[in-house]
């Protein structure tokens, strides 16, 4: 039996996309393999590691637990939409400064998570920063740099507001 294929319209990092996807296709696979935005990583495909986190209409979601078809009409922000090599976002710059990544596989999921968190909580304490990233797994860093990076990102956001 041929698979059911559905048309899906997505806005990803500001760009409009129309794709035809099988109804069972995961959003993570659609982003990675249909749109070729491979910054979103897949570490478990069962919603635990957080590597696949993207912002769906501004809210962090695990894209491995979302069907592409159900994201029809949504605005998606992936790590590619946060900043560029030439103009790192505050989160990205903070992660670099604080050595908050080694292999970088978990990093996109942390960055999108931190972006959404700081939008709502611009001035976290260290304890809050730790909680903010406590739903994402990293096997390399031991998290110390990541927690520091959350605090540093908050600081950079403030610095950039003052001196844009």
């Amino acid at each position, binding site marked *: 039996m*041929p*698979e059911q294929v559905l048309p899906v319209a997505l806005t990803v990092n500001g760009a409009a996309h129309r794709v035809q996807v*099988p109804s*069972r*296709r995961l959003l993570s696979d659609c982003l*990675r*393999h249909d749109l*070729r*935005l*491979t*910054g*979103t*990583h*897949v*570490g*478990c*495909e*069962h919603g*635990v*590691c957080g*590597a696949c986190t993207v912002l769906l209409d501004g809210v962090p979601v695990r894209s491995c637990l979302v069907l592409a078809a159900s994201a029809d009409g949504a605005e998606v922000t*992936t*790590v*590619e939409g*946060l*900043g*560029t*090599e030439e103009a*790192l976002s505050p989160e*990205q710059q903070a*992660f*670099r*400064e604080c*050595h908050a*990544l*080694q*292999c*970088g*596989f*978990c*990093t*996109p999921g942390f*960055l999108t998570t931190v972006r959404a968190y700081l939008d709502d909580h611009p001035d976290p304490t260290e304890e809050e920063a*730790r*909680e903010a*990233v*406590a*739903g*994402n*797994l*990293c*096997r*390399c*860093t*031991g*998290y*110390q*740099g*990541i*927690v520091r990076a959350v605090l540093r990102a908050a600081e950079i956001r403030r610095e950039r507001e003052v001196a844009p």
Partner: protein
Amino acid sequence: MTTRMFGAPVQRREDARLLTGGGRYLDDLGHDALAAAFVRSPHAHARVLDVDVTDALDVEGLVAVYTWEDLPERVRDPLPLLIPHPSLVAPRTGYALARGEVNHVGEPVVMVVATDRYVAEDVAERIAVTYEVLPPVVGVAAAREAVHLVHEEAAGNVGAHLVQGYGDAGAAIDAAPHVLELDLDVERSACVPLEGKGVYAVWDTDEQSLRLWSSTQTTTGVRAAVAAKLGLPLAKVECTAPDVGGGFGVKIMHPWPEEVLVPWAARLLERPVKWTEDRREHFVSSAHERQQLQHVRVGFDDEGRVLGLDVRLWHDHGAYIPYGVIVPINSSTQLLGPYKPGAYRVEFWSLYTNTVIVTPYRGAGRPQGVFAMERTMDAIADHLGLDRADVRAANFIQPEEMPYDFGLTFQDGRPLVYDSGDFPASLRKLKDLVGWDGFEEQRARARAEGRRVGIALACYVEGTGPGPYEGGHVHVETSGRVNVSTGLTSQGQGHQTILAQIVADELGVPFEDVHVTTGDTRRFGYSVGTFASRGAVMSGSAVALAARRVRAKALRIAGDALEADPGDLEVVDGVVRVKGNPGASMPLGTVAVLSNPLRYAFDDTARAATQFAAGGRGPDEPPVAPGEEPGLEGRDYHSPLRSTFANGMHAAVVETDPETAEIRVLRYCVVHDCGTMVNPMIVEGQILGGVAQGVGGALYERMHYDESGQLLNASFMDFLMPYATEVPPVETDHLETPSPLNPLGIKGAGEAGVIPAAALFASAIEDAEGFRISRMPISPSELFHLRERFAAGEVPALRRGGPAGAAPATPATPATPAPSDEGA
């Protein structure tokens, strides 16, 4: 003067790319490739009677289905025994696809190739395999009992057996004033990198050649193995490791079945094929480590000095033994740590079980060895009523005894000789850092508040940077860009940064001009791989030597051109100049132009090197001087005499909840000595990451097999890897005793953080609770049950006692000085 890069906490070159989604990991490649999926055994031990694909054949998108019978010569042969060793008595390796028998859950039986992974899994699901289930051997204790055998030809389930030692340990123990025996038990865990394994292969029909990408720790190894399996000339196979999402050892094992089958299918089908391991596959088909049963017999004097030590290890190596005995050899040799027992005997049995194979996981057998030794040190201290740190100090090898030769053979086949280290100094630093001497007051205060706290320290020595060699190539382009390549791979350690730091200094060029490639056989074909904390030691040294060659050549050429003695020249910021006369100078890029006489002018720089340009060599000289090669480049190798030994000591303070038995880490302190540090930020990152894995391994992670050999927790929902909330802040201090065995004085740092953690937490929890801990990891519920057994008098108390109110119902001071408990 150029700023010195070596030793500076330089930000990483890799990061901008990785932070913006620009990383290229295995599954980011080959979007249009066919996808492979595998039918894997659901049984731990079974005969494969029949494979029925009838139901699968009409799935749209199916391309091919293969079983062992379909495989050609060589591909169908057993996978290689990678590291042969005389101790292997019954070495068995698996097949790329099961040949009539499966020996662990997850073993590949059928390969499916389809248009995408979804379809491939649909097909796999419809393939019916009939098995005749055989009795499984699960766990090292069952393997040792050998009621059932994994392989008929491996009597007693023994795959390897080795005895090493020096002196007469038995006699020394018998003659010692005090004797203790301990039974110890360490469970299975695994590397669990966040990215699983993966292979992508493209067969070029025009060139009859294979391009291969693997998420591996050794591309030269995979390349050679695949060429051999496919019967291809090495020159027709190239292998690249793209960005790799963590390795920690599991990706040094090769060739995995998929690394053979995916390229084989790509060539047969003349289509690109890719396989990306999913998380469940990683749990049930990639390697694990750690499980051992241990028996220690130790004789010591009144100061706690070990006079004789006899250790027996039963090591679980899983269903096959392709990686040989590296792990138990590490356990049995690195067990000695910073100590010098008067006499030593160690015997290990490496045993088959019907579970996933065992190959090195960060630390590679050292955590278990350290567990045995450090538990012994603690037991001695408790027996004599001495301070645990003092007993360790009494056994230390002293700095003036370096190099220290044990008269044993290490895992690299070379003598076990410590090259450097100052253990008393490290211990002093650690005691200061954690506040060892003031802890009793803290304990008393906590006790007054009804809280239980414990403190511990644990020491390790780690052989790092084993040979046989690594190489480096450095090439200066006419633009001044410097290309560096080395064969070993990266899994996030920051090699592109540290190797650039080293070359920038050696060559005298700006850091930004240096570009490093690792793990690509097209760029560097000779290498061993990334494991055993050898990246910086081996490739760092190799690229330094290569850069020195390039520098010497640059000075020769520039000396000719500037009419100066090379000895009077220096290279600063990418410019060769006469010392004290900065006017007489030329950029290294120009030296590169001069180094390569040209016939054709492609651009302005090239024009300066053509045959009619001024300043060439005289009419009586050949354009390329005898003994020289065109181009400003150089290659060199570092092949050390033997491993260099890093060391460290960790301390922890824990609190155990008197009601719930929850275990909280209050402090974690690390003092480490990895020689000179290329980049302290990166070294610290390695230590912190290792500690996190150590905490996970001691308190949370285990591979939970049931008696039928099913892995019950094969997902991130059930295998508890620590999150940010579980890893304590780590305080670090370090000592730098340079290694004399390489040109930079480096010792490895990659595994250090993980090694002593299980021993450390066992000791700290024991200290908080007042009774013996002999099995790790430990969960709150296990601690809770231990308390109950302690209260029932089944677990011996520490002589030094424990928290008020925690004494056993019946005093359990052992009649014989043998604090062995619930182990084997």
